[in-house]
C-alpha cells in the first residue's frame, strides 16, 4: 500500500458529478502535481484529501489508515490556499503560530517553531507585521510558514502562485522546490498551468472532467500520453492533431490516407487487429521541419502543405501557424536559421514521432515489440 492512497473516490455536489472513480497512489516524499483545466475537480480532490469535503464514495488513506472520518486537523495534512487565507487581524507571528496556540503548546515551543519556520522562509524581519503590510510573495511565505509549523505528513497547495506576477512565480517555484528538497515531505500541488506542473512534479496527474487522465513522470506524459486530452494538454505550443483514415495495415506499416486533407503517410506501426476508419495523428510542433521551396522531402516523411497565417518570432525560435487545405490548423516550431517563406509552406515530419489516436480520443499503441 502506498503512503497516500486514493481509492475509487467519487464526489457529487447534488446531481453534478465532480470526481469520477479517482484512483491514485502517492509515495512518501513525492512532489505530486494535479493539473488540468479549471473546473476539472482538482481543488475538490485536494479538499477531500484534507477533509474539508467528504467523499460520496471511496476511501482516502494515509500510511494505511483510512482518513474518511478523521477530523481535518488530525489528518496530518496542511493546506496553503490560493487566497493565502491569512488572518488579517494577526501579525505574521500570530498567523504562523495559530495552530500551535490552538493546540495550547508551551510558549517557548511556539516561539522556537515559529523561529525555525521563519528562518527557512526568510520571514524573520516580518514577524510583527500584519498581512496588510506584506507583499504578495511575503504573504505566500507566511501561508507556507503556517503550514510548516504543523509539521504535516502531507503539504497541500491549491494554486498557490496564481496571484503572483510572472517573475515572482518563477522565483517562488524555485523556492518551493528547494523547500521540498529540504523538508523531504510529501507535497501535493494543484495548478492549471502545465508548464508549472512540468517543472515541479515528480509525478504529474492530469485531470479532466473529474477523471484522472494519466499519472506519471512529466516527460513520460509528454512523450507517451494515454489519450488525446493528455497529449493536447501537456506541452506548449500544443500537439497538432491531423485527421486521417486507415487504408492498409501490416506488420510495422500502417498506411494512412487523407492526412490533413489529401496527404498519405505510412507509419512504422503495427496496428491492433481490426483497426479501420478515421483516426488522428498527433505530431508535436518541434517534430516538424519546414521544407525550403523546391527541396525534396526526406524519404518516408509525412509531408503537409498549407497556408501560413501567423509567425510568432520569439528570438531563438519561431512558432509558425498554418492551416492545411482541409482547414486543420498546424503549429510548428522553426529554428532561427530555417527559412519560412509564406504564404504557402511545406513541412515534413518523421513518422516515427507520430502518435495515433482513435475516434474516442484513446491512444492507439503499436502492437508487439516497438515502444510506440
Amino acid at each position: 500500500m502506498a503512503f497516500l492512497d486514493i481509492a475509487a473516490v467519487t464526489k457529487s455536489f447534488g446531481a453534478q458529478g465532480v470526481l469520477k472513480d479517482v484512483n491514485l497512489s502517492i509515495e512518501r516524499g513525492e512532489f505530486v502535481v494535479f493539473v488540468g483545466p479549471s473546473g476539472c475537480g482538482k481543488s475538490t480532490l485536494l479538499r477531500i484529501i484534507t477533509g474539508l469535503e467528504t467523499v460520496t464514495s471511496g476511501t482516502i488513506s494515509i500510511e494505511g489508515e483510512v482518513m474518511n472520518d478523521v477530523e481535518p486537523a488530525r489528518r496530518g495534512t496542511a493546506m496553503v490556499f490560493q487566497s493565502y487565507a491569512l488572518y488579517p487581524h494577526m501579525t505574521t507571528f500570530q498567523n504562523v503560530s495559530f495552530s500551535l496556540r490552538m493546540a495550547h503548546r508551551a510558549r517557548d515551543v511556539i516561539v522556537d517553531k515559529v523561529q525555525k519556520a521563519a528562518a527557512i522562509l526568510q520571514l524573520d524581519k516580518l514577524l510583527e507585521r500584519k498581512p496588510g503590510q506584506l507583499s504578495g510573495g511575503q504573504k505566500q511565505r507566511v501561508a507556507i510558514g503556517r503550514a510548516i509549523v504543523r509539521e504535516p505528513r502531507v503539504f497541500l497547495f491549491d494554486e498557490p502562485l496564481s496571484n503572483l506576477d510572472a517573475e515572482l512565480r518563477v522565483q517562488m517555484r524555485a523556492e518551493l522546490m528547494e523547500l521540498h528538497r529540504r523538508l523531504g515531505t510529501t507535497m501535493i500541488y494543484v495548478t492549471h498551468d502545465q508548464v508549472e506542473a512540468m517543472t515541479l512534479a515528480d509525478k504529474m496527474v492530469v485531470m479532466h472532467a473529474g477523471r484522472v487522465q494519466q499519472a506519471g513522470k512529466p516527460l513520460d506524459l509528454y512523450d507517451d500520453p494515454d489519450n488525446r486530452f493528455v497529449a493536447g494538454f501537456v506541452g506548449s505550443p500544443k500537439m497538432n492533431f491531423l485527421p486521417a483514415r486507415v487504408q492498409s495495415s501490416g506488420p510495422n506499416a500502417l498506411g494512412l490516407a487523407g492526412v490533413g486533407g489529401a496527404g498519405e503517410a505510412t507509419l512504422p506501426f503495427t496496428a491492433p487487429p481490426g483497426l479501420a476508419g478515421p483516426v488522428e495523428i498527433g505530431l508535436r510542433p518541434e517534430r516538424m521541419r519546414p521544407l525550403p521551396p523546391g527541396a525534396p522531402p526526406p524519404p518516408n516523411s509525412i509531408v503537409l502543405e498549407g497556408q501560413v497565417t501567423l509567425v510568432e518570432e520569439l528570438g531563438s525560435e519561431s512558432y509558425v501557424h498554418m492551416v492545411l487545405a482541409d482547414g486543420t490548423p498546424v503549429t510548428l516550431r522553426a529554428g532561427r536559421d530555417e527559412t519560412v517563406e509564406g504564404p504557402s509552406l511545406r513541412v515534413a515530419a518523421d513518422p516515427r514521432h507520430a502518435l495515433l489516436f482513435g475516434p474516442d480520443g484513446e491512444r492507439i499503441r503499436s502492437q508487439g515489440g516497438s515502444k510506440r
Partner: protein
Amino acid sequence: MTGMSLPPIWTILKWALALSIAAVALFPIWWMVNVVFALPGEPVSLNPRLWPTSIPAGIDKIRLILTETDFLRAYGISLLYAVLTIAGVLIIGSLAAFEFALFDFPGRKLLFGIVMLSLMVPTAVTIIPTYLLTSQLGWLNTMQGLVIPGVASAFGLFMLIQFMRAIPMDMIEAARLDGASHFQVYWHVALPLCSNALVTLAILTFMQTWGNYMWPLIVSSRPEMYTVGQVVGLFNSPLSHQTVDTVMTANLLAAIPPLLFFLIFQRKIVEGIAMSGTKG
C-alpha cells in the same frame, strides 16, 4: 486680483443651510443650559437672557436634584440596563450571525426568514405579549425583565450577518485545518474580523436603550427600578409641582450621558448609521 477666487455660490448656500439647521438643533440644548445656570425665576421673567447668568445657581440645582431625588440610582439602573443589553445583543447577535452567515444547517433559511419577518413587526404589536410573558416569568420590576426582552435583536443579527458573510470561507477553513474548534473559529477569527460592526452595533444599542421610555415604563412600575427616562418623566408630569428650572436641570442631567457619548463616538455613529441604513 488674480488667484483669488470667491467660493462658489453653492458652497456658501450649503454652509448657510447647514449652519441654520445646526442653530435650530442646538438652540433647545443651549436654552436648557441657559435655564439651568440662571437665578431661579430669571428664565421666565419678562426679560430673559440668551446666556447663563449664574453658575452657582445651576450647580445648586444640580446638587439638589442629585441629593433630593433618586436620580443617581436611576443613572445606575439606566447604565446597567444599557450595558447588559449591549452585552446581550453583541453576544447573542454575533453567535447567531456566525452560524447563519457561515454555516449551513437544516432549517437555516426558514429560521432566518422568521427572524427577518420580526423586523417588520412594529414594537407596538409585540409589546403586550412580551409584557405578559415577562409578567408570567415573575420578572416585573427586575433587571432581567428590563434587559432580556431586548437582547435578541433581529436588527443586530441582520447587520452582523452582512458583515460575517464578507469573511472569506478560506479563512474559516484555514482555521479549522489549524485545529481551531468551532467556538475558537468564532472567537479568534470571526469576532475580531467584524469588530467594526460590533462597535457600531454597541453604539446604536446604547442610544436606543438610553432613549427607551416605553418598555421600562411598562415593565417597572416601582420607583426603585426607574430609569433616567422615567424619573425625568416624573418631573415633567402635569401634576408635578416642580419649577421650570428644576425640570430643565433633570432634563440636562438626563441628556449629558448621550451627549458625551455622541461627542466621543461621533465618527463611529455617523459611520454606523450610514452602514446600517437606518436612523439609530
